[in-house]
């Protein structure tokens, strides 16, 4: 029995299959909300799932002149990292499946690996759009990663722990969005940068470079990358809800809070014109500075009292 329990946790619930399904459902909610904001109908509920199923059943065409094992392996790595990150966050309001001192760093690191493998996948192919997309993905990674990290470390600082479950327990009594509003906004926008959502979709801007780093992917690889993105969305939403919106204690809190964030996220997506990549970088420099100022204030006021 002691072996079966972790396997179920890993493969089915709350990590594994459940988080993938949840991610696809949230992708649909996101698309539907953006459509609603734009006065359109939007896709039906099964559309992201149908896309993934269709892509999985399609033949993967491996371009010539590239490292085939990298081409096939990187989507797997991306999905694996996203799923591993999901294990450390309080999904559905349950305690994280695994937890140790410093798992916040590991989670953020794993989420970065998803983006890294995306960039590598682009750089691996000889396609010009992919190469530009890869360069842009990396540029964006370097620009948002520092502020995003800082924004997630803000709550860690006041909670006095690097462990997600401890921070979650701490934020259960403190709504940090009230005391660290800048951190909350930057974390939210950082998630948009991570997921390459508009207006930070320069790395996959379809009117410029088709699909960016993923231009050469058509079948299984694309499906796996999409699943990784979907899982990343859930993990990111959970982290922000847990850190800034008063923690996550039960399933109702989980769904209400993450969906509330998604509502704001979809609104932000539909309000802005796409940033050019150098404009994105500029924006993030500004955000990082703001965050450092906020850190300074927290440090001056003695951290924990907040």
């Amino acid at each position, binding site marked *: 029995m002691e072996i079966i329990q972790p396997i179920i946790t890993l493969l089915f619930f709350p990590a594994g299959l459940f988080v993938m399904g949840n991610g696809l459902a949230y992708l649909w909610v996101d698309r539907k909300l953006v459509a609603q904001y734009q006065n359109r109908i939007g896709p039906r509920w099964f559309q992201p799932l149908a896309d993934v199923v269709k892509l999985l059943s399609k033949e993967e065409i491996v371009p010539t002149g590239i490292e085939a094992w990298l081409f096939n392996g990187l989507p797997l790595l991306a999905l694996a990292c996203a799923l591993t990150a999901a294990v450390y966050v309080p999904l559905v309001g349950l305690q994280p499946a695994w937890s140790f001192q410093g798992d916040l760093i590991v989670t953020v690191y794993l989420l970065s690996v998803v983006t890294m493998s995306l960039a590598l996948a682009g750089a691996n192919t000889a396609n010009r759009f992919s190469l*530009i997309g890869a360069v842009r993905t990396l540029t964006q990674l370097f620009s948002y990663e520092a502020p995003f990290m800082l924004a997630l470390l803000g709550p860690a600082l006041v909670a006095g722990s690097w462990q997600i479950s401890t921070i979650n327990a701490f934020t259960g009594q403190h709504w940090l969005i009230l005391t660290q509003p800048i951190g909350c906004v930057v974390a939210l926008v950082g998630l948009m940068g991570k997921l390459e959502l*508009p207006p930070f979709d320069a790395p996959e801007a379809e*009117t*410029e470079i*088709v699909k960016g780093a993923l231009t050469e992917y058509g079948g299984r690889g694309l499906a796996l990358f999409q699943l990784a993105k979907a899982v990343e969305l859930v993990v990111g939403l959970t982290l922000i809800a847990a850190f800034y919106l008063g923690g996550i204690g039960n399933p109702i809190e989980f769904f209400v809070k993450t969906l509330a964030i998604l509502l704001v996220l979809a609104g932000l997506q539909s309000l802005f014109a796409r940033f050019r990549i150098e404009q994105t970088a500029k924006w993030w420099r500004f955000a990082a500075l703001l965050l450092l100022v906020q850190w300074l204030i927290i440090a001056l006021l003695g951290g924990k009292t907040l």
Partner: protein
Amino acid sequence: MLALEKFIVPIGPQHPALKEPGHFEFAVDGETVTSVNVRLGYVHRGIEKATEDRNWAQNLYLLERICGICSHTHALCYSLGVEALAEVTAPPRAQVIRSLVAELERVHSHFLWLGVAAHEGGFDTLFMYSWRDRETIMDVLEGLTGNRVNYSANVLGGVKFDVDEKQRAAIQRGVDYLEERTHHYYKVVTTDSTFIRRTRGVGTLTTAQAEHVGVIGPMARASGIARDVRVDAPYAAYNLFPVNVVVETAGDLEARFVVRLKELLESYRLIREMVDNLPPGDLTVRMPRKVKEGEAISRIEAPRGEAFYFIKSNGGEKPERVKVRTPSLCNFMSIIATAPGHQLADMPMILAGIDPCFSCNDR
């Protein structure tokens, strides 16, 4: 040796940025574009040659189908040319209705452009809303002419339909709504800072450059050249309803937005005046089946600039030669003039800024 090689990013003929086929090669250094190469002609359909096989009336509908967006432009330009050759003048009421449809078409075309340009800049919300509002004008056109795209408003020697009270009310209702929305969009494109950062100072074409490469239409007017066939050589009913030319001097993408949106407001004024002051009278005059021998040139202001028709008749039932030159061709040169030095990310917007119509251009 490697440093000398160019990294070329191709846009088109199949590319999500362009819904029509055209090929653009951008040589880039990092993200900066260093040179541009344009290749056109992917949608050549041999329409000019095909006109020689059809009679004068049949050609009206063939030429109308050169372009889906400015279909009335082509039909009108051709009818004016043929009528000049045959020494026939359409009655005044028909002339006003022709201009009315032309202005309605300009409204629909500029709205379409607004959406496309916003989409190229990644501002899909503006795209969706402007296209939603464009439906208003499409419905007005459908109610007025019986079709959303190829209106077939013209016949040789007049127009097919009249504007009655019901149509008048529908047009005024639509124009009132669109005027309000246009003011809103004007505010969006001139004040939204994320959008301005993509348009202000991007793709600047100075007046001297504009004269040099010979741009026409809204492109020229955004670069400070007051050039408009409706004013320079009034056709149809434009001598009865004079047009105020909108000119901006900045020459950048923002100026192109401003010019087109202000032109919309000007079009609303013209449409209102036209439906209120329709002269009484017939809709058509008799047109001979055979057109006198001779040559004619007709020019009209399409939504994108000056459209030009050369028509030659040998006295028979069919034209001997019809040559079409559409505004897009003149404006492509401006891309080569403006693109180098800009970011690759600006290319779709600069491309869309000239409102290219490849199917017009290639025929």
